[in-house]
């Protein structure tokens, strides 16, 4: 089965499995555990113009079938990324997606403009949906007008494919997705984490240093599928789905909901090699449910499609 995925502006993935931003560092960290050349792509940790310090620890907490994190987008900044990480990434044969963040529209533009000159960057993922920081995160992501402006700023400085990453923490995420598309986004990725919190009973305090955090992992899969389903049925551009994917069956669920590729995050912490076994399983699982190729499954569960084949 041909696992490659063709996306807008010539973005071609070997297969539909992309390492999700923030869970896979800048690439080298997992290289001892996963043959990076076998991945469909890597979305690197969010990059801002200057280094960000991030939130106070503790930064992770287990919840039932889920993970809360409050990393707060710590990153070494654009210059260090170019100097230290792009050379490494240049040695890897997979699509590299630069996840970009900023405090202001101008900061997003800066990062995109500079990285647009880097051959090694294949696409941008504009993160306007991180619940762990006020600026550069949810404030852009919950306001269609802001989402439009950020996307427009990035679009204006690059010819590379641009995806905008949407937050599930609002009533109608598709409105923000549509605003991004209106401003020139080539794709939508969804979802970022759900806002949540835990209490450390022993300390009588919020468990995370950042008080609230972002919930990811299998627990959020139903929320993610619904957001992907709704966006896919409303916007005209490809959707990259994520949220709690653990298996090739989960990938198929996202495809049936309308995704054309997926990202895999939290499960990598438990099983670093899981993305590779998912890639291996896809043909078998697709055939088990009667699909002959990847595109056939895209959106197949939408109610305007023909169903109940068996």
């Amino acid at each position, binding site marked *: 089965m041909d696992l490659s995925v063709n996306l807008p502006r010539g973005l071609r993935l070997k297969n539909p499995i992309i390492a999700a931003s*923030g*869970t*896979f*560092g800048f690439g080298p*960290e*997992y290289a*001892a*555990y*996963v*043959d990076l050349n076998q991945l469909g792509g890597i979305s690197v*940790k969010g990059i801002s113009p200057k280094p960000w*310090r*991030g939130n*106070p*620890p*503790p*930064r*992770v*907490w*287990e*919840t039932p*079938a*889920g*993970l809360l*994190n409050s*990393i707060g987008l*710590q990153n070494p900044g654009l210059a260090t990324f170019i100097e230290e990480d792009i050379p490494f990434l240049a040695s890897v044969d997979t699509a590299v997606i630069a996840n970009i963040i900023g405090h202001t529209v101008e900061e997003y533009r800066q990062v995109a403009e500079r990285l647009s000159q880097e051959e090694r960057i294949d696409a941008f993922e504009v993160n306007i949906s991180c619940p762990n920081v006020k600026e550069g995160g949810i404030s852009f992501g919950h306001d269609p007008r802001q989402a439009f402006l950020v996307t427009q700023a990035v679009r204006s400085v690059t010819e590379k494919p641009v995806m905008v990453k949407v937050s599930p923490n609002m009533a109608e995420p598709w409105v923000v997705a549509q605003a991004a598309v209106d401003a020139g986004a080539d794709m939508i990725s969804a979802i970022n984490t759900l806002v949540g919190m835990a209490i450390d009973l022993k300390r009588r305090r919020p468990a995370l240093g950042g008080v609230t955090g972002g919930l990811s*992992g299998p627990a959020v899969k139903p929320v993610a599928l619904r957001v992907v389903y709704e966006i896919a049925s409303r916007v005209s551009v490809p959707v990259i789905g994520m949220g709690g994917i653990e298996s090739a069956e989960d990938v198929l669920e996202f495809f049936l909901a309308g995704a054309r590729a997926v990202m895999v995050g*939290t499960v*990598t*912490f*438990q*099983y*670093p*090699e899981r993305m590779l076994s998912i890639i291996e399983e896809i043909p078998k699982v697709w055939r088990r449910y009667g699909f002959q190729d990847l595109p056939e499954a895209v959106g197949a569960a939408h109610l305007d499609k023909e169903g109940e084949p068996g």
Partner: protein
Amino acid sequence: MKNAFKASIVARDEVAPDHVELILSSPELEDAQPGQFCHVLTPGMLRRPLSFSRLDRKRGRAGVLLQVVGSGTAWLYERRVGEQLDLLGPLGRGFEPPDPSRPWLLVGGGVGIPPLYAALQCWQAAWDQPLGVILGARAATAVIMTKDFQDRGVYPLVTTDDGSLGRFGTVMGPFLEWMDRYPESQVMACGPTGMLAALHGAAKARQGSMQLCLEQRMGCGIGACLACVVPAQPIGEEGPCYRRVCTEGPVFQAEELVF
């Protein structure tokens, strides 16, 4: 790949109430260093980091000694000889070897004791400078590995918070006494944050070097997620910078840290 592997449990010892030491065997453990850890798969959403409690590198064996504090350690406690654990490791920056020309002090609290024992095991041979071991615990029932130290001819000074064994109080009393006597001591310490903070504070005013082995909640365990950070030098405008326990630690020089 090389650093993700299964290790067999070849021995299991209930060393104290709710404490168990498992001896693991796998070729990948030949590289393990004192102060390093492994990240162990358990049924939860995250792996559990555990320091090596003893090393037999020639045979590819290493111990982990854990206290049951929650779901993951409870599950590990139930594992039996012959079963396998799924590990990432050896991970992190271990202890710098001690300088053989200066006194050496090991200070351990609770389940911070195991990596210090591994350090002793590794570097004790032909040690001729003063060598001290101070072990603290909540109560007599949580004092671990004293016999292991004794078997190597080193007699730990034990303190308990409730006075149920050894000296009443924390490790700080004996620590300060030792340091008064051997001011140039190189210290290696591991234990609860409160203990490390106190040692760190006391160390500032003194000569000698101090290595601290830290704990922090971890995601990946391999440097990718930035979950496991602790406040460290340099202190910038916004405060200390954050460094990763899993890869830049778990062992830090005291002067690298901010408590």
